[in-house]
């Protein structure tokens, strides 16, 4: 059923978009690719498992807890992996990449020890509730995921465009020195960025738990790589591009599984990365920049 597949694709794509937004925010402001973002996302998913399945508490508490925990993780990441490298003389641009890779494998293996290696079911009260419209089945969970994602994107866009903090963040992304001269507390903005990005990762974690009903420590890596693929697809640091890229990847993966070879599903993202980087390094929606090199 094409229409059903499209709905599946959009559901998946909106989660991808949320993950990618986390990457994009950090890249936009700091110019850093946060390789640990996928693992923070995975922690969010595990918080969801603990709150709903283990403790039997309602879903909204899971969201709240995931936001708090992943926000704190984001703060710690900034303190430990990013701040020490900032403004230090002679540090290569590869250093933050490497230090966040360090954070990512630390977190992944920490969750192995904390939660155990296998798949953890993510129970929720309405997993099986569905509607029949004609010959199409839509699950309540799918609608919920889609609605939450859209709300999140709208709130984020509003916040970036209209609020003072959002404007400060964009100014910092534009040019950190100028922003700091103009009186923006860039240090706080940077922390805020990483914390918000991480909290969005946490929310996405719960959404994925709801969508697939299964959570494991390796999911951070594969989601992280997909997030990377999306921001490369959408243009680094480009908020709209991340949303569009997420939808594109979600749809194409779903269609590959439905009409192609499901084994290659995970390769879609990486092949996308390679093809886009080679054909259009600025991303589908990005603008070509003149390399400054005086």
């Amino acid at each position, binding site marked *: 059923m094409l229409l059903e597949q499209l709905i599946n694709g959009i559901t998946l794509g909106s989660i991808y978009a949320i993950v990618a937004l986390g990457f994009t925010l950090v890249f936009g402001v700091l110019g850093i*690719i946060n390789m640990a973002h996928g693992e923070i996302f995975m922690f969010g998913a595990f918080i969801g498992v603990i709150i709903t399945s283990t403790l039997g508490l309602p879903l909204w508490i899971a969201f709240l807890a995931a936001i708090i925990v992943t926000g704190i993780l984001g703060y710690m990441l900034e303190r*430990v*992996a990013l701040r*020490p*490298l900032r403004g230090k003389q*002679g*540090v*290569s*641009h*590869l*250093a*933050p*990449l*490497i*230090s966040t*890779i*360090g*954070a*990512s*494998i*630390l*977190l*992944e*293996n*920490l969750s192995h*020890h904390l939660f155990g290696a296998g798949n953890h079911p993510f129970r929720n009260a309405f997993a099986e509730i569905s509607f029949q419209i004609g010959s199409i089945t839509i699950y309540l969970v799918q609608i919920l995921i889609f609605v939450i994602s859209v709300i999140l994107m709208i709130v984020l866009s509003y916040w970036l465009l209209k609020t003072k903090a959002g404007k400060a963040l964009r100014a910092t992304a534009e040019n950190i020195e100028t922003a700091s001269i103009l009186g923006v507390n860039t240090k706080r903005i940077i922390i805020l960025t990483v914390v918000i990005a991480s909290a969005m990762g946490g929310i996405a974690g719960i959404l994925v738990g709801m969508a697939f009903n299964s959570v494991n420590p390796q999911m951070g*890596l594969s989601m992280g*790589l997909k997030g*990377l*693929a999306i921001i*490369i697809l959408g243009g680094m640091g480009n908020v709209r591009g991340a949303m569009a890229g997420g939808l594109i990847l979600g749809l194409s993966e779903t269609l590959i599984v439905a009409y192609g*070879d499901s*084994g*290659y599903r*995970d*390769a879609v*993202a*990486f*092949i996308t*990365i*390679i093809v886009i*980087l*080679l054909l259009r*390094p600025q991303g589908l929606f990005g603008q070509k920049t003149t390399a400054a*090199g005086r």
Partner: protein
Amino acid sequence: MMLVEIVNPYYLQVGSFILINIILGLSIYVTLSSGQLSLGNAGFMGIGAYTSALLTLNFDVPIIVGVIAGAVVAGLFGILVGIPSLRLQGVYLAIATLGFGEVIRVFFVNWESVTKGAVGISGIPHIGREIFMVLKDAGFDPAIIGLKNNQFVFLTVFFVLLLINILLVWFIFRQQNSRIGRAFAAIKMDEKAAESMGINITYYKVLAFVQGALISGFAGALFAHVMSYISPADFSYHRAVEILIFAVFGGSEVIVGAIFGATFLTLMPEMLRFISEYRYMIYGLILLLMMAFRPQGLIDVQVLHWFQKLRLPKRRAEHGSKNQKHL
């Protein structure tokens, strides 16, 4: 009788792992020495391993031919990835190569008719045993030198790898102290300036990248013929990170750094068994701490100078480091 006791297959096995890991560490070192970070070396390693394993198993090719073919095929893939990736700067190259590594792994998993999928390939001809067979046919018996058969096999592997390591270090060392090495270093320090001084940066960046791919493919092929068993999991993202950490921990600016990093990090979980479980957590911590406190790795040029001074207190020439920074 003495030799029987000294030659412990377990130690030799660990020693062989160290030597393979050193080759892997050097593979990333070479590429890094031109300022490029490749996270695809696990993928190239896999290409080398599968190429050689399949050739020796399915076509009865001698191991040495298989290993060389593995390295060459990995190198060809290196050209394929390296040339277009040149348009990518620093971080993008790292991600593109990471994506490449994952694509390769996914193919190994899915191309079941050839690669046997996630189960992997077993029964790959073993370097030590093959050499042993050849020698035995020629009438040689390890007992002559006081060794049991399996000891001899492990010892052979170890020495073959040791010889390869020596040759490789020699190669890299000489290349580094030459026009080629200076071009790599110049590109690493300032690409635009290097270009303005007449260095064809395209050529040298591809060269460094392909050398890295070739060396990892070589290491992968050796790995296949030492383990006798390979599976896609051997060439995953975790392997890529492990290779990276050899250079980052030991020191990414000097050859000794990668060698030390590979040796130490292979020995550590073997010596401290309880660490083995936390190995990747420790790797993660190491990467974090190294970037924060010592981004150049444990061993750098200063450390080497310091060692030289210790060893040759008299011959020490005055090093005119004036340290008068202006501006």
